[in-house]
């Protein structure tokens, strides 16, 4: 009987067979945060995070609402700079360099570390210009057409839009718009792509396309994805970090509870809080 062979214990299905887990020591570290603490005004958002993110892996950040996942992610490419009250303490080492260090230009940081947002945010321009705009701004104007085609192909969107490149991006479906935003982000050849709940506004089919895409993209880029969907983390991520909300008298703030290879987080978590979250007893 087929049912007998199914593992009934695992709370979450780990979809694809994985290559033998590489040991962390032979992976190149892209990001290393040291005591990273972010606050908005007086409110602490996330506190004292030490985390290493490895090259060409998908790292998922999971946890309940308000645990500082997005804040953490946005501190990796200095998007928090745009919030006047945000204050960052500790270090974010990017290939050994503190991105909050003296003389570091946030524009240069973001040029290397791209981002895809929760809601698709295409520019009010044509499909072609959405991808080409960043290339033009960064002076990557040689072979614009082929760069645009390559980015759209990588984002698995080319076949759907190749006949309507000059049409407005607003005519695309939500899922297509989000893949366009991914194409826009990878067109400028970043090193890392941060994805902030990229599928939360999409239907299941569009979501699975984005997830398939992440498996492809990690060959070229380092991906960090924030998601509130545990199944999604289990399906796409090599490494998973679990954040939670630590309650204090003055409200609460996010902390990193556990960080490990994804199968381990979902099947043998070391921390009771992680276990409670992944088995659905909490959060």
């Amino acid at each position, binding site marked *: 009987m087929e049912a007998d062979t199914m593992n009934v214990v695992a709370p979450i299905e780990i979809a694809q067979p994985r290559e033998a887990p590489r040991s962390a020591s032979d992976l190149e570290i892209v990001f290393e945060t040291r005591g990273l603490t972010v606050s908005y005004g007086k409110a602490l958002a996330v506190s004292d995070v030490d985390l290493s993110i490895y090259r060409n892996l998908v790292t998922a950040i999971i946890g309940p609402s308000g645990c500082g996942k997005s804040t953490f992610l946005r501190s990796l*490419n200095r*998007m928090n700079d*745009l919030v*006047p009250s945000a204050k960052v303490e500790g270090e974010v080492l990017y290939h050994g360099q503190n991105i909050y260090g003296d003389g570091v230009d946030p*524009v*240069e940081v*973001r*040029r*290397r570390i*791209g*981002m895809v*947002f929760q*809601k698709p*945010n*295409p*520019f*009010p*321009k044509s499909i072609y210009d959405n991808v080409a*705009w*960043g290339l033009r*701004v*960064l002076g990557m104007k040689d072979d614009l057409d082929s760069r645009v085609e390559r980015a759209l192909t990588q984002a698995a969107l080319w076949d759907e839009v190749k006949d309507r490149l000059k049409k407005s991006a607003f005519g695309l479906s939500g899922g297509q718009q989000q893949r366009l*935003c991914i194409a*826009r*982000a990878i067109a*400028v050849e*970043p090193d890392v792509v941060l994805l902030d709940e990229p599928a939360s506004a999409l239907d299941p089919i569009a979501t699975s396309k984005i997830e398939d895409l992440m498996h492809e993209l990690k060959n070229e880029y380092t991906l960090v994805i924030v998601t509130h969907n545990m199944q999604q983390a289990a399906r796409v991520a090599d490494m998973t970090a679990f954040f939670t909300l630590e309650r204090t008298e003055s409200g609460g703030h996010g902390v990193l509870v556990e960080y490990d290879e994804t199968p381990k987080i979902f099947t043998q978590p070391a921390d009771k809080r992680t276990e409670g979250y992944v088995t659905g007893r909490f959060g």
Partner: protein
Amino acid sequence: MAVDAGRYSLTLSRRTRRRKGVNVLMQALATLAALAAVAVLALVIISVARRGASALSWDFFTKNAATFGQSGGGVANALVGSLVIVGLATAMAVPVGILIALYVSEFAPPRVGDLVRLVLDVLNGLPSIIIGIFVYGLLVIGSGQAAWKGSFALAIIMLPLVARATQEVLALVPSTLREGALALGASRWRTVLGVVLPTSFGGIITGTVLAVARAAGETAPLLFTTSIAANAVTWDPRQPVLSIPYDIFVLSESPDPADHARAWALGFVLICFVLVTSLSARLLLVRYRKRLEG
């Protein structure tokens, strides 16, 4: 069991009847007041149109005022003069107004932005005669009148209108668009130029058109700066030129009843221009807002 009719009565008692009466009265007063506003506008347009219609003719638009003692003539020089003055004022006020709006919404710290907004509102409330005297003292004394000096005065009046309208549409541009551009490694200014401004283009045009409509009707600032004009069509902004509102004033002061009719007709032209531009601008703005917020 007998129903307690008094307790559960649904008809009006004396007290509630009085309350209902007050309610009806106040509602009627408020409605009347609103109707009065509509009626005033309608009456102004109708009376100006009725008195001026007889003077509207081809000659009215194409000829200059008749020389003293002769009949006929038109307002061509005033029409061209207004075109020159307002056109030049727009060219001065729009770029500066857009830059002010960009500063307030994209670059300024929140407190400074609030302060600049307040200053713009105060500037918008300044009586236009004050601005006229200011420009007279600044530019006219010693060197005489010129169309561009009138434009400068009108530009001061247009500036807060353009800046405030632009700043309001910039505030409607979703912050997610800015973030998307910045996340690509674009600088603030490139983000503004490539994403924020094109997105708010429709709103900026609307604000500009409203400011033009307002400036076209201003008389006081032109009184001191460009009123002593030759009776000829001039496109040269270095010369003083006649303008529509000032010509209305001149014609209405004339002893000739035909000139009075021309004053009414010119007034009618001005009202039509202002109505058409501001109504179409507002319609555009409504559609544009819907698109941006939709």
